[in-house]
């Protein structure tokens, strides 16, 4: 949990405190970015850009709760931009190995945690046909287990739009599986 005192100290322009804030914030920012983009380096770049944006606008933060939502919003928006650019140059190819992995999970049930690479492969494969918005809603709702209100606050989408996107994403992924 981020302490508001730490944020206030960063608002004073202290680099050391900001370093601490980066350390505390990076993991969950990375989690979202990685799940949305499916690539470690790109996710790290997004985290970096997010932290720079935070530094520039940290004076606007008034509460610790608001801070977390704000971080998610920045990360998701940056991922949107990235995915939109990527969509113009699709690189993804269907991977038999990933399908084998998914089949294995389905037949044997969830056991050990997956490695980053495997997680990214599965998410990329399952969400390949989704739009950036659908992908964001799917990840925030189904994987990060956020409520409709939280997703609405982060993405700026109306609840009904979120429901519609989620319904489409579920249907699409279920069909693929």
């Amino acid at each position, binding site marked *: 949990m981020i302490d508001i005192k730490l944020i206030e100290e960063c608002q004073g*322009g202290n680099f050391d405190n900001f370093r601490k804030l*980066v350390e505390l914030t990076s993991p969950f920012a990375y*989690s979202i970015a990685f799940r949305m983009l499916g690539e470690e380096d790109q996710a790290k770049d997004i985290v970096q850009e997010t932290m720079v944006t935070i*530094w520039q606008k940290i004076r606007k933060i008034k509460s610790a709760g608001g801070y977390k939502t704000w971080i998610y919003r920045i990360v998701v928006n940056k991922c949107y931009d990235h995915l939109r650019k990527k969509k113009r140059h699709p690189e993804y190819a269907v991977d038999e190995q990933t399908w084998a992995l*998914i089949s294995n999970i*389905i037949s044997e049930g*969830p056991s050990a945690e997956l490695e*980053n690479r495997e997680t990214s492969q599965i998410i990329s494969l399952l969400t390949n046909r989704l739009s950036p918005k659908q992908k964001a809603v799917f990840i925030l709702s189904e994987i990060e287990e956020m409520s409709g209100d939280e997703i609405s606050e982060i993405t700026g989408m109306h609840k009904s739009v979120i429901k519609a996107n989620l319904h489409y994403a579920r249907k699409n992924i*279920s069909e693929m599986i």
Partner: protein
Amino acid sequence: MKPESEKYNKVLEILRKSKPLLNSTEDIENKVVARISRIPGSEITLTGIIDFMFGWVYIGWVRRSMIAASMVLVMVFIYQQSVVLKRINYLNRQIVIIEGETTTTPADEIERRIMIYKLSGRILPSNRLIISEKQLDQLLESVTELQGKYKDLLNLIQEDPELKNYIEKKLKETDHTGIKL
């Protein structure tokens, strides 16, 4: 539960369990700090200056003390204003008596005094005579005219020694020795 949703839930469950791990935040920290150090140096300086000047607002007790001090100052200001207003009202009710002087008083001086009298807008007690502004102007004109005529008369007497002697003699006879030409 349908087989599709069962499969879907199994996949979701494993994805939820598999949190992406960030091996080391140090690399990100260093890169971020390096980047923000390069961005507008002026911003960092500006932040420092602003903090130096207004940083105290983040200290609770200083902020509360300042609020209390400003409230006291506002109350003192209101009290002062009320005292000043009261005093002005009191002075407004006072009478400025313009004492008549000898005819040697220049016309400008009289006009000035009358102007002050007009501007002060004072209220006279009921037992005093109140004259209108028009009557005051007429009085002023008469005084000025009288002063002019008196000066002319004095000049005339000064220029003619015979007339002067005659008038002085007449004044002695009528016992008006206090009047000097």
